[in-house]
Each structure stands twice: as structure tokens, then as C-alpha cells.
């Protein structure tokens, strides 16, 4: 969608009368009040016409000409949801820790959220612009928006939307990743005011959308979205325990593939939240288990961390930062061949091909200038895969699900004192929040 189009839409909304376009004339009241002549004149009616230049009336968006804008907008919403998700999953999954009190990072870090919107942690309440890490709102919006666009694209013909297949691939990929992340983080899910479903259902829907994305991407020649959807499929299958299928899903991803989401300092919704929370706002620091990542005695360059040698004023937790994200503009990798390689390694190990798994690990080590890993012990190799995923995919949204999938012990353990009072909790998934449960007619 070009700028002219959005300008045109804004002009239309500016001239629109927000309360609607057809309504009862004042004449009814005028007759009652015996002031018909005064009230009936158009001038009075026009007095109720007001401007709304900052709003885009929803019905103006029901136009095929808006398809490009809307699909780009879906991507924009997912971009925001993803960087927030990386922080939430990082805090729960001990990649990050809270270094000051007062924000909702405390509840994520302490694993003590409940389903309310305020005092119980705001995974249900925070949104893209929030200073707090958000989860449910941005993911729900990007999922709904993506599916909504897929539905509209089904209704609109090629003549109305010339690049329909290209847009379909994109919308389906964003839908797939939205379902995927909800499946990884929630305890249960609900979509479109529908009934409660399992996280396995969410992951199944993610795979469904990725398949649609792959078909449309192949058809429209978009290799980036094709490979993105392949890796998304592999990730979802891995989560479902279908390791071999996951390996197959990502087998064709080229070694140079990487798909990054762009961010910028433009506004709160476009910020790289990892940099913002860790270095700009100093709400979160790096988790203790990531402060000294080494392989064979060699510091792992994939987890670049620095001890700032201080605490945030007023609090006692040491502040560690990471240079992996060094500005509000820093992109975040959504998917890439290293993830595919680790999925394939896990599949190879499950398929009794440990040497293939080791080989894939060492390809990653070569890229990171780390010594080769050598082992034929399947348990050791599995431990190394877990380590590789921690290092290679550090602060890229994976460790929360890995923690659950590999049944890793929580760190710090539940019941240990929490630096900001109370004890660490044991929650690792987010229940449907009250806002969903109380307002969705199909939930009890």
C-alpha cells in the first residue's frame, strides 16, 4: 500500500462522521419541543459532523485496495508481538532476570503471575506500546489479524488484489508464527471467541497456516517466506514431539538462510525490546546461567554478555547486559539455518544417526569459531544439542519451550527466595487470562 492510499483513507476518515452516516433527523425531537423550524435545518445537523483524523474507520478497510496495507500491518503487529515475546519467554526461561522492582518483569521472572490484568502480572494487559513486556494482547491481535486477512483474501479475487498469492503467503506465515508462540507459552488457548483448546491444537493450527504459507510462497516465488514457513513447521512439529517429521520439514532450508525482523527507534511499538529493557531502561539483566557460557573452556561468542559492575539504583541485583542487541534498531532473528540444523540434529539423534547430529553441531561451531564437539554418547550429544540451542538461539524466543520440552529444572528453583520478596514460583505456562475467560461467550 503506498502513501497515497493511506492518505486517501485518512482523508475519508477525516471527513467521516464518527457516529455514523445515517441516523434519525432531529425532527422527532423538534416536533416534541415545538421548535421544528430551528431544529430541522441542515445547519444544526451539520453541527454534529466532527473530524476524526487519527482514526481509520473499520469499514474503510473492507476494500480490496487496502489488502497490501493490511497484510503489511499484520507483519507489523507480529513484529511487535515477537520482540515482546522474546522478553517474556526469556524471563520465564531464565535467559533474563529482573534487576529492578515495580514492573511486570518481576512477575515473569518470579514465575508468579495470575490471570488478572494488573497486580497479578500483566501478560494479559500489556500491549505493544507498554513499557512492560507484553504477551497475550499482541499475539492475539497478530493471530486474529492474520487469519482475518486470509479470510478476506479468500473473498477477494486476483483482479481486485493482483498480488494476492504473495500476500497470502505472508499473512499465513504470520498467522502460523502467532499460533506457534501461543502454543509454546500458553496453558490453553481460545481463538475468535471460540471454546478452550489445547496448546497442541494451537500448534496444529500453526502447522496448517505454515502449509498454506509454503504453498502460496512457492506459487509466488517468495523463497524467504517459503523457508520461514518450513522452519516454523519444523519448530511446531518438534514441540509436538514429532521429531522426525520436524527434521524432514526443515531439510531443504538453505545454509545461508536467515529471516530477521526489523526494528527501529521510531516509536514504542517499533523498538527492539531486548535492547530497550536490558540496556536502555535497565529493567532486566542477563540470567545467571548465561553469564559464563563456555565450550571446552572457550567463551561462547554467541552469548556476548558484560558485567556492568553495578546494580540499578535502589536494588541489589547485579546488572549484566548483552551486546547481541546493541540498539533500538537491532534486528531479531525469527528463523535461520542454525535453528534448522539443530532441529535436524535432534531428528538425526532420534533416528540413531548421532554422527550426523555431531556434524551439524560442528557446522555451527565452525561458524562461531568454537572447537569441535566430539562424542558418540547419545546422552552427551543430546545435552550438547540443548546447550547449542541455548547458545545459538539465545534471546530468540526458544528457551521457554525448550525448558518445558526437555524438562529442564527451573532456575532458580521454585521455593528459593526471590530478590524482590517472596519465593520463586513454578509456573511455566500462561493460563487464559481473565479478560478472555470472562468475555469470551464460549468459555465458562
Amino acid at each position, binding site marked *: 500500500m503506498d502513501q497515497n492510499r493511506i492518505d486517501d483513507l485518512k482523508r475519508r476518515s477525516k471527513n467521516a462522521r*464518527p457516529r*455514523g452516516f445515517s441516523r434519525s433527523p432531529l425532527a422527532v425531537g423538534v416536533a416534541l419541543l415545538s421548535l421544528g423550524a430551528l431544529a430541522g435545518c441542515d445547519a444544526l445537523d451539520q453541527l454534529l459532523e466532527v473530524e476524526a483524523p*487519527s482514526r481509520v474507520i473499520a469499514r474503510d478497510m473492507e476494500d480490496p485496495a487496502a489488502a497490501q496495507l493490511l497484510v503489511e500491518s499484520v507483519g*507489523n503487529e507480529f513484529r511487535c508481538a515477537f520482540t515482546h515475546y522474546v522478553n517474556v519467554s526469556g524471563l520465564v526461561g531464565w535467559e533474563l532476570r529482573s534487576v529492578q522492582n515495580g514492573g511486570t518483569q518481576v512477575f515473569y521472572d518470579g514465575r508468579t503471575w495470575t490471570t488478572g490484568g494488573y497486580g*497479578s502480572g500483566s501478560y494479559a494487559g500489556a500491549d505493544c506500546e507498554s513499557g512492560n513486556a507484553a504477551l497475550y494482547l499482541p499475539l492475539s491481535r497478530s493471530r*486474529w489479524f492474520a487469519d482475518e486477512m486470509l479470510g478476506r483474501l479468500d473473498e477477494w479475487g486476483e483482479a481486485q488484489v493482483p498480488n494476492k498469492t504473495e500476500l497470502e503467503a505472508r499473512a499465513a506465515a504470520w498467522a502460523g508464527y502467532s499460533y506457534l508462540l501461543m502454543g509454546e507459552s500458553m496453558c490453553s488457548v481460545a481463538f475468535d471467541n471460540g471454546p478452550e483448546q489445547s496448546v497442541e491444537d494451537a500448534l496444529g493450527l500453526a502447522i496448517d497456516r505454515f502449509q498454506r504459507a509454503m504453498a502460496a510462497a512457492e506459487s509466488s516465488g517468495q523463497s524467504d517466506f517459503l523457508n520461514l514457513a518450513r522452519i516454523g513447521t519444523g519448530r511446531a512439529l518438534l514441540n509436538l514431539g514429532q521429531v522426525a517429521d520436524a527434521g524432514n520439514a526443515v531439510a531443504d532450508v538453505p545454509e545461508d538462510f536467515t529471516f530477521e525482523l526489523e526494528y527501529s527507534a521510531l516509536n514504542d511499538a517499533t523498538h527492539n525490546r531486548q535492547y530497550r529493557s536490558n*540496556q536502555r531502561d535497565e529493567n532486566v539483566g542477563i540470567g545467571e546461567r548465561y553469564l559464563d557460557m563456555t565450550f571446552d573452556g572457550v567463551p561462547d561468542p554467541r552469548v556476548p554478555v558484560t558485567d556492568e559492575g553495578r546494580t540499578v539504583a535502589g536494588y541489589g541485583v547485579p546488572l549484566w547486559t548483552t551486546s547481541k542487541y546493541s540498539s533500538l534498531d537491532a534486528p531479531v532473528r525469527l528463523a535461520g539455518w542454525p535453528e534448522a540444523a539443530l532441529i535436524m540434529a535432534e531428528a538425526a539423534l532420534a533416528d540413531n544417526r548421532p554422527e550426523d547430529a555431531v556434524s551439524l553441531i560442528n557446522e555451527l561451531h565452525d561458524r562461531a569459531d568454537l572447537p569441535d564437539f566430539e562424542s558418540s554418547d547419545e546422552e552427551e550429544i543430546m545435552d550438547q544439542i540443548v546447550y547449542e540451542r541455548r547458545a545459538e538461539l539465545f534471546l530468540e524466543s526458544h528457551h521457554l519451550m525448550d525448558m518445558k520440552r526437555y524438562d529442564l529444572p527451573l532456575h532458580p528453583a521454585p521455593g528459593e527466595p526471590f530478590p524482590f*520478596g517472596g519465593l520463586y514460583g513454578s509456573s511455566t505456562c500462561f493460563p487464559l487470562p481473565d479478560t478472555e475467560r470472562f468475555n469470551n461467550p464460549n468459555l465458562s
Partner: protein
Amino acid sequence: MDARRFAGTGLLVALGSLVFLPPALSAQQATITGEVVESGTRTPIAGAQVSVVGTGIGGLTNNSGRYLLTGVAPGEVTVQVQSIGYSSQERVLTVAADETAEVNFQLRTEALGLDELVVTGTAGGQQRRAIGNVVGNIDGSVAEVAPIDNISNLLRGRESGVVVNQGNGSPGTASVVRIRGQSSMSGDNQPLLYVDGVRVNNRMSTPQGGSSAGAVSRIDDFSPDEIESVEVIKGPAAATLYGTEASNGVIHIITKRGSFDQPAEWTLSTRQGANWLHDPAGKVPINWGINPSTGEPEGLNLVEREKERGNDIFSYGRIQDYSLSVSGGSETMRYFVSGSGQSEDGATPDSWQKRYNARANVSAQPAEVISIEASTGFSLNEVRVPGRGAGQSALRSLFLGSPEHLDTPRRGFWIAPPEAFYERSQFVQDATRMTTSLTFRYDPTDWFNHRLTFGLDLTDQKNTAFTPHLSPSAAQFWSEQVARGSRNVRQESVQQSSFDYAASVSRDLSERVSSTTSAGLQVNTKRVELTQAIGEGFPAPGVESVGGAATTFGSDDVVENNTVGLYVQEQLGWENRIFLTAAVRADDNSAFGEEFSLVYYPKVSGSWVISEEDFWGLDFVSSLRLRAAYGESGQQPDVFDAIRSFSPRAQPDGSPAVFPDAPGNPDLGPEQSREIEAGFDATMFGDRVSLDLTFYDQVTRDAIVSRNVAPSDGFFEDQFVNIGRLSNRGVEVSLDARTLDLPTFDWDLGVNVGTNRNRIEDLGLESFLELGWTTRHQEGYPAASLFAPRVVSAEVTPAGDPVNILCDDGQGGSMDCGDAPWLYAGHPDPSVEGSVSSTFTFGDRIQLGMLADFKLGQTNYSTQMWWRYAALGIAEELWHPETADPRILGAAELGRSGEFQLWTPASGYMRFREVSLSAPLPTNWAERIGARAARVSLAARNLGMIWTEYFPYPAQDPESRAPANQLGGNREPEDTDATPPLTSLALTFRITF
């Protein structure tokens, strides 16, 4: 339109008028002269009719209350004084030829003022005796003596049913004003504001979003010096003719206008004094921690510790106020022109206010049937308020200090010492305002009158949050991002216009029955233009503009809301003592949903002056009026609430995108409040006692509830729906008594009490609506009530750790706190509020006035306690668990992830609010400086707390509660960052020439 430009011009015009108006006319010879003053306040009564009975000799008092009667025949004469609103008086005296006799009068306010005209929305106003509801009236002249520096303080404690809560002691910060409780669950519940018949901006806003601790209210742009009176129209039964927006009541400010046939009178006054925080060491908690230098735990009072270092955290803030006015008039015109400047410093460098006002009011009566009134007021109001939140509030850092930080640059303060916050957190609101009205009245016959009023209210409000490129001493406490500085400027230009036509036809249907038919049309428009510019990261100290910052952002928006309303009213009178009124108003508003049409507000009321009936036989009751009214009014939804819309959101590269935002509601209409009001007004014992009693029962049906929408459905900004029902019920009592009336000593006693029982009858939702950390709208409870789990038992191990912590299960038992229900803990608004005032008058001259106000049945949310007990563990009990209540230790242990009733203390109080001592200077002293009269007053405010229940644990003050929170949003009555009310003492000189 640029309000600032208008304001500048206006100031010149007003001040120029002061210079070029003609000087006072010379007095003439007289044989009887004297002064007419109000008996309670001793303020002069202008325009009183003074006459020698049976002679035809008479005249009016001037603005100083002075009169002069000449040509009186020697001998015994009777001098009579009459003035509307006051009981008339007569004095008999003997005058001799060529002598001048002085006779002074003290008129008592006519207790019921039955013949006073009250502004009700109709063309000519209505006599109070004909109105079926109570209309409060506050005399603006009390501000000449009492310690009152803004309109909010003028309202406080002077009218039952009107709750005024400043919430923050910083000068210039707003008071939340609520009349008869909360009638809306989604709106801000602020009353509608009129000035001289024109609807004006009554918005309350913070100088910068949620980061500043105080809000500023536009009602406080007006200077009390220019106020003649304030009428308070309390509820829907009275406010029906004001229509949509009036369900929270109406405050109508009437400014001074001068008097016809009076020479110019100049009044110069100045007020000098100081603000301070009383007993600061007693208002901060003693926090515990380990002193690094001793390795031992100890308690720390930072106020005392800093004082030992020679550093007083709180200081005296100067009060300065200067005003000059002139008023008078000829046979066909009258005028009032004034200019004033006020400066108040708070107790810390980050709180102050500067306000400048100018006003020019001119009324002309070119013919007997025509009158024209023009009013223009200007104000420049600049307020700095302290910051809010952990990173912005010096006060929070003080309250949460700990010995652990003593040997650091923080000197024991939590985040940073105060001077670092003063440098970092600079929140200033700078508002320029022009309010003008023009009213034409034409009364072609004695049975028909009509008027046309145009009004314009322009406010140009600049909110600035500024952090300079911090000095190294301040920068060390914050991140590099903060230390590089930023400027956030939000400009709001609010334009409100009013068009109001009203006509009345009066006729006698028979000898006994009179009829007045009224009709009117009002058009009110409001347009808010918002512009925001943000700059972050200054390259070097001294660069302070947005344009000089490394990163800049900008945005703008326009918000409009228009209302068109019509009404018709019929009033029938029976022998001028029984009145029946019926009216209906119809409104349309641009914020109504497209499927919603007009809204109608009916009204019916009756009034019976029963004491004027022939059968009346209760001699001790001088007058008694019974009244009852039923009426409706409304509150429109917010501007965009009905629209289903996307909102723009840029992509990282700046290209456009949108996101699904507001679900909208095409059926959305206004909240409609209906009210039954009944009561009586009586005077007894020879008018020495007056008693008003009013019962009201108010229901807001179709209350707008901001219903959460399931996020799974995409558009999940709250949806506004007319599904709620909210009630307010209460009794208002006002008692005024001349307790003692001796030749040299008078004692007047006044008592105002109002009760309010607010309740959500129907929320329209299956569950509650979560508003904030602890506040909820929940059916069966008052709006925005506080809820939290309640710890009922805990045990403490020998090591001091709480275990087996159990909470109330809501059914008489106990259970694990993690699953415990959140139980009702109180509500933020008082159930009972009121005031007691006393005025002692010594001799003719010296007057001592006192006012104490109280609020009962309200609850605060003490975030300060949450931080000290649950988050930081610095409360003394946690360091001495052997002496502590185990439940406190248990709540502190669990409190981090949830709220507990320990942080929601009851906060009723009674405070010694006002004390004033005033006396006129001897006339010969005044004459030495060429003045007619002079008065000096010494007035103090917030002298001390008489009683409070806010002491379960150390906390600052029951009145400390963030007013911004109470405007909507989470409505949390939070205490952490709000400055306690400051005590003030000021000396006022008032000289009349």
C-alpha cells in the same frame, strides 16, 4: 485561534482599563451616612436601598457599602435598609440641623432567600421559591478574608454534597470535585462548569501523562478575586435543562459586574505569606536496614538525618498575591475590571505556581427593555509539579530510603537524593486561557423576555516534561539514556463555543394562577487540537530544545464533540407560594452511536412555601418551604467510543500501517441519570437558625461500562456499552445559626453534612471489572471499590519467618492465600463528608473565622506500605518479627505478587482547614493614605489534623492520593508520590479607594 495571543491582548486591555478609567467621584454633603455590611463576614453590601421612611429620600450603597442621605428634616426619623437576599432593617434616630449622623447596618443573609433569582438555564432565571430542588450558593466574598487561593478551595467544605479532594499539596495542583458521588463508571465524574452563562473547559490533566504526581484543573484558572458567587446545581433533578454532560452536577461561576449609579471604586489588595510542610519528620516513616558502616540494623529517618547534615529537605515556600480592581457604573452601564498576579512556592523546589488573571466585565442597559452583558477573562497559569514513580519522584525516594544506602552517593535515599530528582524531573504545565461571553437580553413586554448568549473559551495548554543533559552528580543515578536528557512537549488547544437562546413567557391565568413558559436552544461545540513533540538525547549540556535532540518524534490529532439541545418548560404558580414545574429536554451529540437517535430528559418539580399559608401556626418557624423534584440528565460517551476503527501505527522504516483497535458500538448512547430529590428549607427563632435538609435518590441507568473484549476477537480495546446501573443515595443537611447575638460579640455556627451511598446495582457483566491493582467495579459495591485478599492468620518461626499463612476464604473460614478470594476492602469516596464552621465577631469590627472539614468512610490504597513491607522489606516490624503481628509478616511475605488488605487503610479524617482573623483598620488610618477603607486579615490553612483513622501503620497523610488516578483509568487512591497538604499562613491587606 491562538488563545495566548488573545490573552496577551486581553491583559493589555484590562490593565489599560485600570489606568484610564475615571477616578473616584467626589463625595457629596450629607446628613445621614453610614456603612451597610453583611453581618457574618463584615463584607460591604453594594446596591442596598437605604431610605428615610416616609420622606422619599433614599439612595443606594456603593461598592464599599457606604451610603449618603442628604436633605433630611431634623427630628426623629426612621432609616430603612433593604437588599435582595438580606433581611431588611430599620433604625430610629434623631438628627439635628447641620449635623451628620452615622448609622451603620449589619444585614443578615435572608436565610432562605426565597425571592433571590437563581440561574437555572431559563431566560431570566427563577426565584428560589419556585424551584423544586436545592441550588447551593457560595458567596465569593469569603475569599477576601478566608485562606482561599483558588476556586476548588472556595468550594471545599461550603456546600454539603460537594466533595473536594486535592490529593496533592503542591501549589496549583487540582482537586477532584464530586457532587453527590460517582454517577458514571466510565467517565471522570467531574461536574460541568459554567462561567457567566457559558459552558467552559473543566478538564483536569497532568503536566505529563502518568509521570507527574499532580494534575491541574482548569477550574482553578479563575481567580477568587473576580468571583461574585458560585452556584452549585447538584444533580440530575436540578440539572435537567443543562442536558447531556450535566449528570455530575453543574458549577456556575458568576463574576463581579459592578453596580449601576456608583462612582468608580478601586480596590488594591496584597497577600504575603508562606507554605510549609508541618512536622516533616513525623510524616516520613522510619525505615530499617543494615548500616554498611556498622554492619548492624538500624532505623533511619531521612528528614532528621539530612537536617543533621544541614540540609532541610522541606523548606518554606513564599506566597505572594497582588490584585487591583475597579468597579462602578453610570445610570446605563456598569463595569468591573481587575488584574491580579499570584505566586506560590511549595515546600520543595519542584513545586510552584504562578497565575495571572485579568478580567473586564461591562454591562449596558441602553434602554429599559434591552441589556447587554460582556465578560472577558484571561489567565496565565503556570504550574510545576513533582514527578511520580520510582524514577521520577523525590518523595518516593525519601519515603523508601534505607540505612543500606547511607554510605553511597544516595545518602540513604532509595534511588537518588532529592536534588538529583529536582534536576531530572521537571514537569511544568503552562496554560493560557481566554473566556468570553456576550449576552443580549430583550424584554419587550413585562410578560415576554428572551436572551441570546454567545460564549467562547479558548485554552492553550502546554505540558512539558523536561530532563536536561544531567550533571555528573545527577547522572550517576540513572541510565545513560536518561542522563542524556529529553524534552516532551504536548500542546493542547481546547476551543469551546456556546450558543444559547432562551425565551420565557409569563402571564397570569387567573388572579391566583400564574404561568411561565420557557423554551431554549443550546449548541455547544468542543474541539481539542493535540500536538506532541518529543526529543531524546541532548548532545551536550545547554541544548534543551526538541530540535536539538538526537532522536525526535512528533504527532498531532484533533478531537471534536458537539451537542445540540432543546428544551421546553412550563411552570405554574398558585398565589406565589405553590409552584409546579414540568420540562423536557432533547439532546443530540456527535459521540452517540449511529443507531442511537435523540435522548430526552424529563423533569417535574414542586415547591410550596407552606409558612405563607393562612393556616400556618408554628410561630417559632418563620418560614418553611417544602420542595420535591424529579429530573433526568445525562453524560455522553467519549468522542470515539462508538466507532469501530483501526488506528495508524508506523512500521520501523516509517511506512504506514494500521492495527485493529476499537471495537466500537453503533448503539452507544448517553448515560441517563434520574434523580428524586425532596426536602425543606426553614428558618426558625426569628431567622436566627436556618436549616436545609435534602434527601436524594439517584440512579444512572444505561451506565456506560467499558467492557473488556475477549482478545481472541481481534479488536480488543475496551468496548463501551450502556449496560450498567449505578445508584447514589444520600442526605444533605445544612444548618446555620446565630448562636450568640450580643451587642459586642456574635457567634455564628455553620454545619454542613452530606452522606452518600454509592452502589453498582447492575454491572451488566458476569464478573467484576478490574480497574487497577486493587480497584474494581463490582456489582453490589460502590464504584471503584478496593478489593484484596485478607490474611487472617500466620505463624512465625523462631528465625522470624512467617509460615502457615492463611487468608479469609470469604465464607467465614480460611484457606491458602494463593487461591483466596479478593474481598471488599473499602471505597475511595467518603460515605459522610461535611464541615463545621464558626465565626466570632468582636465588637463591630474584628472577626475570627474557623472551618474544619471531615470525611468518613473512605479508603486509601497505600502503595507506600506495599513498597515498604512487601517489596523492599524496610518496615520496622520485619526487622523485629518477635514483636510484630504475624499477619503483617505473612502479608509482606506474599504481597509481592498480590495485594493485601493491609495496604488499604481506612482514611477518614477531620482537619482544621481554615482559620482567619480580620479587622478593618481605623478609618482615619485609611484616610491618611487617601483610602476610603482598609482591612487586614491573617489567615491560615491546613493547620492540623483533629482526628484521623489513617494510622494503622506509618503513612504520610490520608489526603495524599494521586488525583490523576481518580479521573478515570484505574481510580486508585494511591498515596506514594503525592505531597501531603501544606500548611500556609498569609497576611492580606485590602485597601479601597
